[in-house]
């Protein structure tokens, strides 16, 4: 493997790591910081991808918006969806055992999968990136690199910075983190914890749906896509250390490297490597890389 190829592979692992963090970001919020075991995270990601596909004609027809208009409309819808979901299905679950949340979100996976099949059918779809991001940059003599993947990586870094800033440097972030460690205490301090949780849950769902929409041109849109990302998202959040944004980002990059170079150097064991990595990290540091930030 000559140097040029090695550098391109590093770029590939960096880009996959950032994409992983983007996809798992909604989960770092709902599961990482709020402590809700949200198996339906994959479904939100799928909803985002299908929104990017299904909303495009509708948005174009109503006020002629392009890809970015779809992102805005989709995110607003997602916040509403998240708000309603929290009120209807999660508000009474916080005191209950974690396993009740597992059962509830398992039910939601089934419901979302079937509603998608009823609404949009079971075909495979593709989403075209917006024209200004549709080009490619030359990369070495043979390859070129799609500009859109750089945009995705950019969105991811922005999101990571934004979430890190909100949760560690603002009062809102402090309240949320306090709320997740001791709900009653924060309530007794006069903070309306019910409303706060609803807002944070809605934000978590919105980020997951946004990730689905942004990743759609790269990941394509097909039935059951939610399931394929679900486990890897939990791996990212847990390796990073539950509740730590920095940890999730580092974990995503680490998995990007292991998955990318694993496929190249150890193809027959490529499927296992990510899980070997997780087992090693958790056995070395049983609370993940960064204990709660």
């Amino acid at each position, binding site marked *: *493997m*000559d140097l040029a*190829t090695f550098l*391109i*592979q590093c770029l*590939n*692992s960096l*880009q*996959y790591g950032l994409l992983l963090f983007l996809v798992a970001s909604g989960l770092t919020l709902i599961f990482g910081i709020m402590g809700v075991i949200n198996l339906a995270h994959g479904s939100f990601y799928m909803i985002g991808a299908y929104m990017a596909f299904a909303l495009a004609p509708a948005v174009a027809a109503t006020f002629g918006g392009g890809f970015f208009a779809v992102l805005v409309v989709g995110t607003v819808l997602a916040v509403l969806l998240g708000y309603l979901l929290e009120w209807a299905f999660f508000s009474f679950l916080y005191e209950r055992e974690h396993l009740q949340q597992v059962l509830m979100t398992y039910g939601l996976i089934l419901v979302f*999968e*079937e509603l998608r*099949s009823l609404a949009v*059918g*079971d*075909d*495979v*779809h*593709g989403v*075209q990136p917006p024209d200004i991001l549709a080009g*490619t940059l*030359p*990369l*070495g003599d*043979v*390859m*070129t*690199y*799609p500009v*859109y*993947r750089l945009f995705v990586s950019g969105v991811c870094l922005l999101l990571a910075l934004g979430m890190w800033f909100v949760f560690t440097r603002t009062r809102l972030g402090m309240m949320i983190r306090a709320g997740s460690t001791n709900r009653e205490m924060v309530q007794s301090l006069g903070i309306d914890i019910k409303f706060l949780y609803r807002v944070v849950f809605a934000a978590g769902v919105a980020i997951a749906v946004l990730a689905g929409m942004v990743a759609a041109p*790269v*990941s*394509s*849109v*097909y*039935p*059951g*896509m939610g399931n*394929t990302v679900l486990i890897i998202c939990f791996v990212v959040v847990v390796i990073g250390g539950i509740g730590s944004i920095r940890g999730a980002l580092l974990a995503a990059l680490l998995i990007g490297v292991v*998955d*990318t*170079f694993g*496929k*190249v150097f150890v*193809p*027959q064991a*490529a*499927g296992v490597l990510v899980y070997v990595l997780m087992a090693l990290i958790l056995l070395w540091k049983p609370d993940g890389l960064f204990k709660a930030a």
Partner: protein
Amino acid sequence: MKLKTLALAAALVAASTAHAQGLPKLKVGLMLPATGTYAALGTAIENGFRLYVNEQGGKLGGREIEFVKVDDESDPAKATDNVNKLIKRDNVDVLVGTVHSGVAMAMAKVAKDTGTLLLVPNAGADAVTGPMCAQNIFRSSFSNWQPGYAMGEVMAKKGHKNVVTITWKYAAGDESVRGFKEAFEKAGGKVVKELSLPFPNVEFQALLTEIAASKPDAVYTFFAGGGAVKFVKDYAAAGLKKSIPLYGAGFLTDGTLEAQGADADGLLTTLHYADALGNPKDNAFRLAYAKAFKLQPDVYAVQGYDAAQMLGIGLAAVKGDVSKKAELAAAIEKAKIDSPRGAFSVSKSHNPVQDIYLRQVSGKENKLVNVASKALADPGRGCKL
């Protein structure tokens, strides 16, 4: 005493009329995916099957057809139960299914144990018409070996010498690449590198970079559904499309062209069907299908349609009496099936001996280029039929 004779007489009359008017309804068990990634394929197969039955006025071999459906969820762990549900609870006379190879293997075992007639409308696992072949198991689709082998011949003829193959690490991918390698190396070509990634991982960047690094003459691939859409788009986005020609089994571009858009233009694939074959049977089939289902038919619809044809031929030969298994099987083995893909007959191991076409993508359609392999028969290795 009088009452008993009356009852006896009535029974006799009922029996004779039933016979005159044909036996009771024939129950066909459709075990196809209704949920999950293969749901669209399940629907297409069912549409094709029902189209042929409707064309025959709802009767095959003089017997009215009643459908019993089960969603196999493409889950091998539930396969045996779903088949038992059809055979033991609904006591179907014929089993039709399925898409997923793992599920098809379980169905084949139950069919062999119970002797029920099984028509496989898609799953390409070589073993179904190989070690698992049986007198009562027929396939109307293909074996993974066939498209691969045909593309091996095509690429050798085109003068490619060093080729890289890439696919998921699962049975269908391995068998397709094996078929390709057999033909390509027989014709003097060399497979430089066999790349693979775990199923259903769709992160191809790393391996695309490997392809660019090893600079082969061409690439052979086997992907389907969402994976196929993503691979074709990533391959084009990585700039490889213009420098290293991409070939593949037909599933790379079948049912995915709308999603792939311009990235798929010009791709050459091999499959036993194409979008515009032009023969009269295909034109009639496409018209009827479009009218009935408001959709364009694809290879899966054709395979469903032909599975129904095979059943029709078999039943006609035994006048609807499914218990005459040997006669029914012999009839299908001898028959020439007038399929939209072109007439074909089944090999000794009950897999279609069919023309494999070379197709090229243009204008969101897989246009016919020429016949890659004429009447290509699956070797049926391991079949003792």
